[in-house]
């Protein structure tokens, strides 16, 4: 199975990268960008074939390693 994980900063947590990217985009003439948030995107190829079990497993990976749950939240998709 393929699992996709999206890791984003929790709302309210400062995103220095997003801020810098936004102002660079503005100076490139992309003026209509109101906000930019940068996160991580992780693709995992799993041996597991059951979607339910795969999701549960990936969620455990997120808690333990893939996301820093102090400041980040995550979302998992399996297919």
């Amino acid at each position, binding site marked *: 199975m393929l699992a996709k994980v999206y890791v984003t900063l929790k709302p*309210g947590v*400062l995103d220095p990268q997003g801020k810098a990217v936004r102002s660079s985009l503005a100076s490139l003439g992309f003026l209509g960008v109101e906000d930019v948030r940068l996160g991580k995107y992780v693709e995992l190829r799993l041996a597991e074939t059951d979607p339910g079990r795969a999701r549960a497993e990936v969620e455990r990976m997120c808690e333990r390693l893939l996301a820093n749950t*102090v*400041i980040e939240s995550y979302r998992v998709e399996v297919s």
Partner: protein
Amino acid sequence: MKREQPIDSATIARHGLTPEEYSRVEAALGRAPNLLELGIFSVMWSEHCSYKSSRKLLRGLPTSGPRVLVGPGENAGVVEIGDGLAVAFKMESHNHPSYIEPTQGAATGVGGILRDVFTMGARPVASLDLLRFGDPSHPKTPFLVEGVVAGIGGYGNAIGVPTVGGEVAFDHAFDGNCLVNAFTVGVLRKDKIFLGRAAGPGNPVLYVGARTGRDGIHGATMASAEFDETTEEKRPTVQVGDPFTEKLLLEACLELMQSDAIVGIQDMGAAGLTSSSVEMAGRGGAGLRLDLDRVPVREERMTPYEIMLSESQERMLIVAAKGREAEVERIFRKWDLEVALVGEVTSTGKLELFFGGERVGELPIGPLTDGAPLYDRPRHAPSDLAERQRFDPATLPEIPAAEALLALLRRPTIASKEWVYRQYDHEVRLGGVVRPGGDAALVRVEGGKVGLGLSAGCNSRFCELDPREGARHAVAEVCRNLATVGAEPIGLTDCLNFGNPERPEIMWQLEQAVLGLGDACRALEVPIVSGNVSLYNETDGRAILPTPAVAAVGLVSDCATGAHSWFASAGDVVALLGEPWRSPSGPPELGGSERQAMAGPLRGKPPPLDLARERAVQRACVALVRAGLVRSAHDCSEGGLGVALAECCVMGERRIGARVALPVPGRPDLALFSEEPSRIVLSFDPARRGEVARVAADHGAPLLELGEVGGERLEIAGVLAVEISKLDAAWRGGFLDVVARPTAI
């Protein structure tokens, strides 16, 4: 005044104020506070900002001297170094945030100490970091080590201030509470020192730097509260550091400081806008009026409470001279930073806060600062101390000396810290004359020959067994480290990391440690010019080992004469400055040593420190190094003489062996590893023998020839002979044992 619902006792407790303290708040105001005012009192009266448990004790420290320009009380201490120049330095803790989120916690710790230094008008030139982690085998330890080091490097490297040294030690007492103490030193002109003072009614107050978000609200009270299972809930209080913005802030501040537009300036550290405004007003004997609507914010609908208590990073508060606002604005705009006129200095002696056209808070400055509670907390020695101080080294199981040596070299506290300092840019700004790896760093001051010796340390185990003696050792060791690069100590900063001061045993430790710092500083004639106190370092009622960390700054008039710590040349004489063992016949001291920790629980007493002897050894070493008489100098600390000799063989880029003979008293597997102070291993050209002996004698320091550099082994006659490749493998591998584990992304 804006009123809200009355404050209940749960709210008071949540703000960390005792009922008595709350009555004092009411007395100071002459009425009940509103929530905003309560929040402000709560952070200003927190242990972190008010030093309420430690202030009385700290008064006993020696803080003055002929070179001292600014002592404790300002953002950093300032000491003169000649040629119209001075250095500003300080050390600060970021223990609690680092335990919760190691990377960001450590990063913002570095960011904070950098601001403390450049707010004085100094350009930061070097940083040190002193770290304590739990047992290497504790599941959380590798995660914390990895994160903290990444955080310190990530911030320091990006901003371009070299991290040139530090200390890392491990002990299970830190399992639930690591220590991250960051030190920075900067260089400034002695006639261009900026202070955190608000003065001159009518002068404008400007906010500069990053926008204010909801991060870290109540971080200052968190730093003063013990950890327990509810710690998880406090997590959103972690702040994210932005070294890029701080770099801009640094350059903008230094650019503005070229002019005389600034009356006072202070960074917004713990307790953010609250502590910076209140402290500046307090020092200047003034009042302040702030219009909180004008504070640049990052989030929608932020309340005055949030704005005043936010601990967003990379912000400063400036009191400018009236009419100079435009200049300030021009410079901060140039650096793409926020700048906003947020208020003015008044003569009311009050902090007056406005929001949405309403007066939302009004607090007298005096009670917030000088009038903060001061405690003379009860203290007494732990009842089992005498029992724990009893220890007979002979009870340690005997093992072959070579085996003990290899095992000790591999212990993470002793092993090479290369894994750590390779992740730090220690060369940027072209100052690195003696780089990490030896006892002290030596950093050239731009534009001349003058160099700064830098070292930080503390033996926490010694402090647990005898806090006064332990603190004396800490001062002696950092100054001894400076001596090995020929630097004479000119100033010290401390960071007092202890448990809950409401427990009499902890309060006693704190008192004893402060006394010890004072003893040693007086004897070695070095003032303490700045510092920081971090209390409540405990988890579930278990305190850390008391750790009065110190960092020393030393001066070298010509840094071309610095020595390295390691043996370099076959045929050189190996000698010991100081006495190999205090008592040539009796049992060696092993209390608090790594040798003891390797075999069993912490017991006994730290080895006694004779400060007169210490001073003689240090002065002799400084003279030898400065005269270019010695090729290497390495002090004996953790692991004692045995480990020091082995390190001399393997620390350099080219390993080299040595053959020595020692008058070992008793069991070599103990004596070789006793951690007695006041000893420095030297190597020098045999042609210099006479001169070296004369300098040592002139300073009243014992000197004992031990043998000769050369060969592929470390041989201690009749005791051990080990291939240097084996020593090297143990010493270089020890730290990797800790960190070779899963890494978070």
